[in-house]
């Protein structure tokens, strides 16, 4: 068992354990903070797969952006005065049966399939320069479209979340 394997199992354990907490915890704040460790674990897995740029991107965007956004969502949509912020579940039994079947099928297929591995040697050079070149050449059109999508999404989000002037917040709550 090499050091690589040990680090892999460490990150895999962090990822799966905290993902379990995210899904099974009754307290939504615990879930949100467990999601932080899931993202960290996934970033570690990216590093092991020689994706250094993506690992940093994962930390910046998921931990720095999306997770903070989700926490804001939690804070803004719950009465903060009651400390226990519980969330209910429904359809637990059928959902667990179906998900267990799906997980077993997926794992079985992944395990049985004889994957054709092209190269197994570790490459240690940085991927950032190559990725940047690819975005300016092969993936130029998707890259530009993605930037427009981001712009539209941000403007749309600001527009949707803005309070409607015709319905002040005090009136809307009575509906």
């Amino acid at each position, binding site marked *: *068992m090499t050091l690589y*394997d040990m680090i892999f*199992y460490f990150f*895999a354990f962090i*990822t*799966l354990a905290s*993902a*379990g907490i995210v*899904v099974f915890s009754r307290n*939504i704040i615990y*879930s*949100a903070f467990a*999601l932080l460790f*899931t993202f960290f674990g996934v970033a570690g897995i*990216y590093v092991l*797969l*020689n*994706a250094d*740029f*993506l690992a940093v*991107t*994962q930390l910046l965007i*998921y931990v720095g952006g*999306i997770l903070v*956004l*989700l926490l804001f*969502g939690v804070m*803004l*949509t719950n009465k903060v005065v009651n400390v226990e912020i519980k*969330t*209910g579940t*429904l359809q637990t039994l059928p959902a667990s049966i179906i*998900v267990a079947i*799906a997980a077993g099928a*997926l*794992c079985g297929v*992944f*395990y049985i399939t004889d*994957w*054709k*591995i*092209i*190269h*197994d040697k570790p490459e240690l050079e940085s*991927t950032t320069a190559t*990725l940047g070149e*690819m*975005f300016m050449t*092969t*993936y130029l059109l998707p890259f530009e479209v*993605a930037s427009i*999508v*981001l712009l539209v*999404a*941000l403007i749309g*989000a*600001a527009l949707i*979340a803005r309070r409607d002037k015709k319905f002040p917040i005090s009136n809307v*709550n009575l*509906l």
Partner: protein
Amino acid sequence: MLPSVTITHYLIISAILFSLGIYGVVTRRNAIMVLMGIELILNSANINFIAFSHYGGIHLDGQAIAVFVIILAAAEAAVALAIVLNIYNRFNTVNVDEVSALKE
């Protein structure tokens, strides 16, 4: 002793993460928990892309796709949270099973 790491390990991790995400999306009533489940699913897809990029001989194409997945996840989270905040202002709840009407 635990076996040495191959591509199968990464794929199985992503499969378990995917299943947990699906479970969260299906069972939780809170809309923000549903969003967290979706993030788990997107992360599991990204692990698959990058594992195949590393082991499958497609070089960095898988990583480029993963960057686009992250971009779209950010856009999706922003818009979805704006919608959730709006729903909370209208209906005073974010439980997805209670918000069943498109208008009051």
